[in-house]
């Protein structure tokens, strides 16, 4: 979900709801003005989050005060993090027990050369995106970084919120990659919408990441209903 969406202080209630429904962890997105890899739904949520006044300073405050105990992963484009200050960001994550972050536009190569030492010194581990087009060699590099977090396996080559049918071929390919990742947990995301998708993804990997569909449910104020359906609660 995107911080600051739908309202500036909806985060904790949202977290509590997700916790009560049995979701295992929440990826909280830091809104950015130019979300390159995102489709219309997350773009819109980011825009509203920014208009509502969300920023990293406020987000860390909200997370520090949160009632919910659900584990959190921060997701954000690199610029707001850079602007906040890498060390300040890592310290702030440490203070609220966040150990995994997703920085989708930070590449493995640049991370390794310019940032890795500082992240690992603070015990913060990014999880890198891997796609069905990623080479074996790069998957190994990603696994080397992500052993203490997880691999974010992108189901389809598209911006977020796209269509996905999880065909047999595609599932085979996703399974191959999951196997390559060995003991490092693999979560699959992009285009996961319903209980069917979740079941398929669970049969392949360690977890499913749901973004755009859930934001749409929030927009339509039917997140409880959506979660029940997603989790197969009748």
């Amino acid at each position, binding site marked *: 979900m995107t911080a600051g969406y739908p309202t500036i202080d909806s985060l904790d209630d949202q977290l509590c709801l997700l916790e009560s429904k049995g979701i295992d962890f929440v990826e909280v997105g830091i809104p950015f003005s130019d979300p390159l*890899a995102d489709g219309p739904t997350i773009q819109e949520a980011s825009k509203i989050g920014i208009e509502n006044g969300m*920023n990293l*300073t406020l987000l860390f405050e909200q997370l520090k005060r949160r009632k919910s105990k659900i584990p959190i992963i921060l997701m954000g484009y*690199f610029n707001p993090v*850079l*602007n*906040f200050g890498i060390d300040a960001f890592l310290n702030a994550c440490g203070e609220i027990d966040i150990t995994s972050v997703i920085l989708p536009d930070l*590449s493995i190569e*640049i991370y390794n050369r310019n940032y890795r030492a500082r992240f690992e010194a603070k015990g913060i581990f990014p999880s890198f995106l891997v*796609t069905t087009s990623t080479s074996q060699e790069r998957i190994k590099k990603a696994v080397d970084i992500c052993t203490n977090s997880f691999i974010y396996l992108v189901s389809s080559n598209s911006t977020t919120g796209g269509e996905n049918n999880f065909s047999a071929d595609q599932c085979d390919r996703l399974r191959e990659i999951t196997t390559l990742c060995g003991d490092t947990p693999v979560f699959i995301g992009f285009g996961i919408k319903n209980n069917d998708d979740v079941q398929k993804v669970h049969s392949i990997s360690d977890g499913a990441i749901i973004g755009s569909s859930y934001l749409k449910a929030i927009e339509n104020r039917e997140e409880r209903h959506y979660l029940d359906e997603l989790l197969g609660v009748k």
Partner: protein
Amino acid sequence: MLLKTESYTKPDDLGFYGEFGGAFIPELLRPNVEELDQVFMKCLSDEQFQKEYIQILKDYVGRPTPLYHSEKLSEKYGGTIYLKREDLNHTGAHKINNAIGQILLAKKMGRTKIIAETGAGQHGVATATTCALMNMECIVFMGEIDIARQTPNVKRMQFLGATVIPATSGSKTLKDATNEAIRFWINNPDSYYLIGSVVGPHPYPEMVAYFQSVISQEMREQLQQKTGSQLPTKVIACVGGGSNAAGAFYHYYREPEVKLIAVEASGLGLDSGKSAATSILGSPGVLHGSMTLLMQDESGQVTEPYSISAGLDYPGIGPLHAYSINEGRTQSVSVTDQQALAAAKALTRSDGIIPALESAHALAALEKITIESNDVIVVNLSGRGDKDMEHYL
């Protein structure tokens, strides 16, 4: 010393010019960008490729473009002032130099669907033109506001057979058109993204600068003939993303006696909140795949730039310019809307040349720098002003 000057034209292995540049891209784009890098590297030493590129520039684009000595400007400002006439290229701006180079790369890669972003529409027109020439499909993303203020170019693109898709997010200008182009590229990995300036992830900045470097290569030869020296004392060029400037500066980076002056648009004024003077108002940040100087607010959101000129209305600058300005090699100057409009009118009346609004910013810089009588100055006249008549009259 050598290494340092080389680093303006040759970034390190991850694509960094000092702290700026790199490829900050989601993994989804990695295969595309890697393939492009490999093909570009090969073309650098591919004689056949070079030959074809140079031949098209000569026979189709009309290069070399003249280096015109303006007696009127020289008289007005002192020194000897030349205009590098990129406005005389086919399609009316320097943008075609890069479009030809990249379309040849696309051809080598077997791609037939070309996408591009455009601000003033000059890059869109250049891309649509090369696509018509090479029989390729062309999709151009253009901010809604830019579509309204550069109508003639929209019509040209459409007549050339391109599909123009309005970018309706954010400031609805060049930045957002670029976002849309990149998203389309993610969703259509079989397309070729023909970026229009020295921005974007590595290898784009290096590649676009390389394809524009023909500008300063010609300048050296032409100055030699006209003045007996290949070196001017100053080169002036406007900077939106910075491709015409990169081309005009390229072969002078390693000549410390040549002053390089990058002109940015300050819109309604530096303190007005309506400006695009990135190197003055920006701080290090990441946009569109590279680390550069970036106009952003205190929480790292990219701020919406403003300039009357659609081609300069961009919140970042090419990473090599960010590096070169920070190192003090390039000096940046800023020019307001009003100053650019006045300079456009002055050149039109004194020399019968109607410059593009973007190029008018470079001309206006002549008012802002100190000029000695022994100065030899080249102003890169990046494009012609037909598209801007609504602003001029």
